[in-house]
């Protein structure tokens, strides 16, 4: 099934680009283009029409946030186009910009996370499927911020864990497995989170995460 998922990879360091392509191909994705600079990325996104893009924030020729800009531009052209952004740093500002359109299908991870192959592939899959994969650092900072404003103080430690894992792109089943609790317990915790943050209920998992992230970002 994954071989029908067409991926564009943009990363300027050969070693990492090569590693990413290998990893994705090994796990059954089809890499349609692997580019090393901003203009080539924009071309690939427009011409190859991939299903998901894995993009490094900093790319030549400017070595600034060329990759991020290209990703945001592509999402403006194709709302909800799945993008997984990788970077040596995670910035709350960039996370907020990626989430701003509320369309989901966004991932933002530290490059180090690539070393955990299983989780990285899960993240690509989740994003390609319209989900969210936020780096634990982004979520941790959002929660501290929420605490400082007295918004998340009421969440129990378990609910915090669940929230972080959802934001990181894990499915309910994966969360249940990781925390060794039942799937229905996960659902209950999620309902609890929404109740305590006074957010409207929604059936769509993805919407729910976006609502929480938007709330914490405010």
């Amino acid at each position: 099934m994954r071989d029908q998922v067409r991926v564009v990879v943009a990363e300027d360091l050969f070693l990492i680009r090569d590693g990413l392509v290998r990893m994705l191909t090994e796990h059954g994705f089809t890499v349609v283009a692997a580019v090393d600079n901003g203009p080539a990325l924009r071309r690939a996104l427009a011409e190859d029409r991939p299903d998901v893009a894995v993009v490094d924030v900093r790319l030549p020729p400017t070595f600034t946030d060329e990759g991020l800009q290209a990703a945001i531009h592509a999402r403006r052209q194709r709302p909800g186009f799945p993008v997984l952004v990788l970077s040596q740093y995670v910035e709350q500002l960039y996370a907020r910009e990626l989430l701003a359109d509320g369309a989901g299908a966004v991932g933002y991870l530290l490059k180090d996370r690539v070393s955990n192959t299983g989780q990285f592939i899960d993240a690509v899959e989740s994003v390609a499927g319209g989900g969210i994969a936020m780096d634990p650092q982004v979520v941790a900072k959002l929660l501290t911020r929420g605490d400082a404003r007295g918004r998340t103080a009421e969440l129990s430690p378990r609910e915090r864990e669940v929230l972080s894992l959802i934001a990181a792109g894990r499915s309910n089943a994966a969360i249940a497995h990781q925390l060794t609790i039942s799937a229905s317990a996960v659902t209950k915790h999620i309902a609890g989170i929404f109740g305590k943050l006074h957010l409207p209920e929604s059936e769509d998992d993805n919407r729910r995460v976006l609502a929480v992230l938007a709330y914490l970002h405010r």
Partner: protein
Amino acid sequence: MRTRFAAPVRALAMLCLSVVGIGVAVLVVASAALMLVGVGRYVFPSAVSLLRRVTDAARWLAGRVGVEIERPYGPETGAVALLKARTTWRDVLWAVLEPIIGTWAAALALGMPLYGVYGVAVQPFVWQANARAGGANAYGVIHVTSTATALAAIPVGLALIALGLYIGPKLLRLRARWTGALLGPSRTTALEHRVETLVETRSDSVDAQAAELRRIERDLHDGAQARLVAVGMGLGNAERLFDEDPAAARELLAVAREASAKALDELRDLVRGVHPPVLADRGLADAIRALALDSLLDVDVSAELPGRPTPPVESAVYFAVNELLANTSKHAGAVAVRVALDYRNGVLTCDVVDDGGGGADPARGTGLRGIHSRLAVFDGTIAIHSPLGGPTRIRLEVPCAIRSA
């Protein structure tokens, strides 16, 4: 309006001051002459400091009419040093020339309204008495010999008051400007001061950079470098154990991966302290917005910049704001902070205003001093207004060029 009515009063003050000035100048010159016989050594410094008090008052008066004059004096206090100081003799020169050149402006600013008041309010009542006493009764060109001519003098008097009040402030400013030419720093003193500042800020900045490099070296040596050595060793051991004890090898690999992640974390923190990624990517405004998002305070950022300042200026202002926000969250007991960036007339300003308890003391803590020396390299300044009970307002100003975006 207030300046207009204050002008005659100020003019009077200036006139009195120039009378005092000439007296003190004579004293200075006399005590300088006494230096030859030795007694002057003890009298001269007091005479000079007295003269400086007079000139300080003149500077203050000039400031009141809108001409700021900087004090040009150096650190010298000894009799001989004061005798040699150019500023001493410029002060004397001012005191001597002031009554000659400056007086007319003050006299007009004071005299015209006064004479006008005389014509309007006094003359009509006294001209008859004057005439009886045989005095000449004239008001300007009008020869007052009857009630009619006395009344005719009233509009002339009113016009004189109006004219005097109208040109008064201008005259005083003109006068203050010439005062500034002698009492302000001369080109040489100004340049001397400039050189002093440059030497000071240069050595500060070199020291700060050297300290920064030492810190980076230490962090790399004790942090990432050490961890990479550990990673290498772990990988080597894992390679050796690969065949005979795969389980142990796997454990070593996991440890190595963890160490590499830690090394990356440390490198990230290090780079963030040297040059934050958002600052490099987007410039000052977005970098400060990123700071705001990382802060636990409610930080509202507004920025109106036509482009980007040079990277060193951006970096200095960024780290200054970083420090200020950290201070605020640590000490001020504030909840909300406003940061406003603006660029006008070649000066980048950054206001940081919190709603905390105030009482920030620049003398305490190295943070504010650090900001001061960081900005001083660019002739930038930090002004702190933090009364007890708050709020604290801090303004950073850095003169700089901006490349338009």
